[in-house]
């Protein structure tokens, strides 16, 4: 019924239609179509071929390795991210601006360069490589190196989510907790963590998606040893280069599913965060009298 009322400042109908068409068309062509294509290709030779491709020993190993890397990287990044955000949000110190800029460094540098830098440091011709090799520690072309580069690449996700959140929340709650006698640990787990939990979870979801999907940096330090240092994204590339399209897309479909799960989880967390903020910003209820009762 409100359709009849045209807002005076509204764009003309044809412009709205054009913008809508451009936006949705782009979304369909560049995002939805490829996603559908992944699954279509994966199932081209039927369900059995798909299942066979996924139950291949090397594919299973790639999946396992990807999960292992994420499992190691995420807890470390949670601790480092919370620590860095805490330091930046609650303390004033020299070089704070530099630290904030450095946190963004992994976003600014190409992942391939990150991989090369780690090769330079830990490789056989690198700075620490020979020293480590002499002690039987292998970083590059092995799991530790892949974990290190993934840590580096995914570090900003949690910190960048938490810093603005913690800055906006201020330190009043923490000071209140301390003045009520809480220890630092009690303050963190009872007051700070509940306040930042949704922001933290949001950062973890994004970091996880990146940790599992990272290609460039991991590719450089992995050495592409089949069945040993191949993560899922690397495995997809190898299979595709061998013209094994069904297996490649089957593996890719797992990554695509991961993306969909990530999106859903992200939406859910965003919704929870918004709801919590709305509850917080909700207007005050009407005041009631504050007179003390007559005491005997």
């Amino acid at each position: 019924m409100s359709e009849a009322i045209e807002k005076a400042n509204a764009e003309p109908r044809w412009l709205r239609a054009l913008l809508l068409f451009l936006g949705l068309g782009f979304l369909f062509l560049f995002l939805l179509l490829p996603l559908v294509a992944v699954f279509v290709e994966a199932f081209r030779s039927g369900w059995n071929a798909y299942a066979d491709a996924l139950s291949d020993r090397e594919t299973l190993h790639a999946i396992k390795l990807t999960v292992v890397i994420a499992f190691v990287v995420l807890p470390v990044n949670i601790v480092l991210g919370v620590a860095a955000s805490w330091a930046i949000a609650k303390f004033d110190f020299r070089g704070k601006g530099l630290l904030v800029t450095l946190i963004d460094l992994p976003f600014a540098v190409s992942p391939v360069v990150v991989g090369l830098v780690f090769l330079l440091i830990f490789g056989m011709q690198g700075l620490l490589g020979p020293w480590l090799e002499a002690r039987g520690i292998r970083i590059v072309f092995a799991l530790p190196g892949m974990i290190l580069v993934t840590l580096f690449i995914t570090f900003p996700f949690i910190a960048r989510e938490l810093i603005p959140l913690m800055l906006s929340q201020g330190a009043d709650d923490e000071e209140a907790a301390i003045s009520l006698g809480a220890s630092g640990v009690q303050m963190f787990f009872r007051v700070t963590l509940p306040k930042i939990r949704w922001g933290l979870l949001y950062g973890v979801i994004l970091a996880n998606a990146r940790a599992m999907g990272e290609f460039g940096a991991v590719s450089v330090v992995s050495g592409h040893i089949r069945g040993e240092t191949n993560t899922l994204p690397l495995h997809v590339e190898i299979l595709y280069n061998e013209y094994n399209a069904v297996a490649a897309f089957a593996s890719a479909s797992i990554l695509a599913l991961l993306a969909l799960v990530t999106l859903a989880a992200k939406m859910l967390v965003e919704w929870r965060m918004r709801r919590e903020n709305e509850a917080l910003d909700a207007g005050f209820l009407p005041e009631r009298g504050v007179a003390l009762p007559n005491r005997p």
Partner: protein
Amino acid sequence: MIEISNVGKRFGNFTALDGIDLKIPTGELVALLGPSGCGKTTLLRIIAGMETPDAGNIRFAGADATRLHARERRVGFVFQHYALFRHMSVFENVAFGLRVKPRKERPSDAEIRRRVFDLLKLIQLEWLADRYPSQLSGGQRQRIALARALAVEPKVLLLDEPFGALDTKVRKELRRWLRRLHDEVHISSVFVTHDQEEALEVADRVVVMNRGRIEQIGTPDEVYSNPASPFVYQFLGNVNVFRDRVQGRWASVGNEALDGTTDGAENAETNPVAFVRPHDIEIEASAVEGAFESTVKDVHTIGPIVRVELLHETELIEAELTRERAHALSLTRGQTVWFKPRQIKIFNVPGNALEEGGSGI
């Protein structure tokens, strides 16, 4: 008894506090009053242990507490924006201080429940125990914050602009309520405010601060009717300021015709300035002894009082009359009247101008 001696604090180049000496006797309700940036909140936070002073020391009941951690000071702190834990119910907020005690000292669950409900009854909000802070009004939140601070049986209660975020009506109710609560729980309380009315109404003693220093300490009546400095005069209520003319006619008015104080106005090196409160000015319709001729510039009726702007030669003078008096005079713009200060206070102000922040004209 809290003794603060020679406390100083700097933030970079800014001197927040400079040589503060203050004694807070047990059981008193003390207001730290001053304009924003005067250091009052910093002083409160130093008492609480949330800031460390650069100089001086603080004693709680005779024992040095300067380096004592905030956790060990047994102070209750109430924040302007409540700082309630929003993920906890009202009950859990109040119980927080009891639940975080070391196992040996921690009361049983039943005991915690009893004490929390006692406090909620004290603040008359026991019916809100299961609500969350977001479901409460501002006044309710602040009362819960107060109950939470009292739960750990603090030796002193510190309140940082406790009513600053509330609207006028609630603020007035709540500050009277605080006064009664303070008398009921027998505790020393210090609250920070920039609202002179609040300080004068509620406190046993008012500490007027400016630029990191204490200007005056006294009962509300003392600081209002006998201000120790031009700043206090200007900060507590409206005041007419007359400069440069004190040695002439104003001084003679102050010294002889009226019961004014001069505080060494005879020293010609400095710059004597006369202060007259608007309600200490009488207006007459005809010339009387010692009165000055002036023109009515404007008349505003503000609730029970009438504020009159007078033009005397080149100076604007503000006077406050009761409605009845104003009615009897039937003042109109442009009318010629005679005014006469009932009370004048003269200060010697060293060369530079008076501080901003006051409401002098």
